């Protein structure tokens, strides 16, 4: 009961905020909608019993990525530079007006329809597992998996993060004015 309530509200939050990201013009508002969508996904994780992943989602996205995005927006400013270049077919070279939304939606709908086919097939083909509403703690198990079966990926991701950190710091560093 409560679980379904959580599921529905999270799903609605996720989808509506994702659409909000798409719809609103203001990039700042887009970021805030993205935040809502990510929180919704965290809620969905919670309904799937993935407590640790859910909290990690909040921790990384709310505490890190979204604030980073907002920073980037503020540092780059929301200027309204409009490019009128077109390609050979007469389509707008840049995507950002009604036409491009139309194209994007077209592509999206095509993809949606194809994948709904896929999901319909998958759900029939996959084995059925009995689902209980018990949610055992996943923290210990995830910890064991991370340092045993997936230790290589774990170490590699630490190297990746270090590389990203150093790389980002070097790329974004203001160059000396000669």
């Amino acid at each position, binding site marked *: 009961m409560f*679980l379904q309530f959580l599921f529905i509200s999270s799903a609605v939050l996720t989808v509506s905020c994702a659409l909000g990201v*798409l719809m609103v013009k203001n990039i700042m508002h887009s*970021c805030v909608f993205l935040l809502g969508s990510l929180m919704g996904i965290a809620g969905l994780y919670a309904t799937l019993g993935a407590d640790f992943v859910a909290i990690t989602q909040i921790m990384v996205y709310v505490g890190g*990525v979204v604030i980073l*995005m907002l920073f980037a927006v503020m*540092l780059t400013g929301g200027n309204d530079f409009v490019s009128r270049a077109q390609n050979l077919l007469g389509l707008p070279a840049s995507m950002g007006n009604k036409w491009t939304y139309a*194209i994007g939606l077209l592509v999206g709908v095509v993809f949606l329809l194809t994948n*709904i086919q896929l999901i319909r097939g998958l759900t029939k083909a996959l084995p059925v597992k009995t689902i209980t509403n018990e949610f055992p703690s996943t923290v210990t198990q995830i910890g064991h*998996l991370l340092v045993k079966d997936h230790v290589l990926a774990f170490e590699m*991701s630490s190297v990746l993060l270090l590389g990203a950190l150093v790389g980002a710091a070097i790329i974004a560093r203001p160059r000396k004015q000669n």
Partner: protein
Amino acid sequence: MMSLASYLIISLILFVVGIVVMIARKNIVAILLGIELILNAAALNFVAYSRYVTNNLDGHIFSLFIIVIAAAEAAVGLAIVIRFFQIKETIHIDEATQLRN
């Protein structure tokens, strides 16, 4: 109500919205937002499969790694955006044409 298919469809919607955002917006930051949505859709799929299909938590691990990669990608991507802005004074995607000719 709560079944594998419903999660898959939510994730599909997210994915499609991400695609549309990536295609339709011209702001680089907005494109990065689209990428975040796509990555999250993938991660949600992993966790859903982990609960409904498999008996282990490898899906959780995968989505954790996806979150890690998304964070790294956001950091580097935004650094590039800022650098791009310093050079071009805009973050319009079509201005990134230096390698074309």
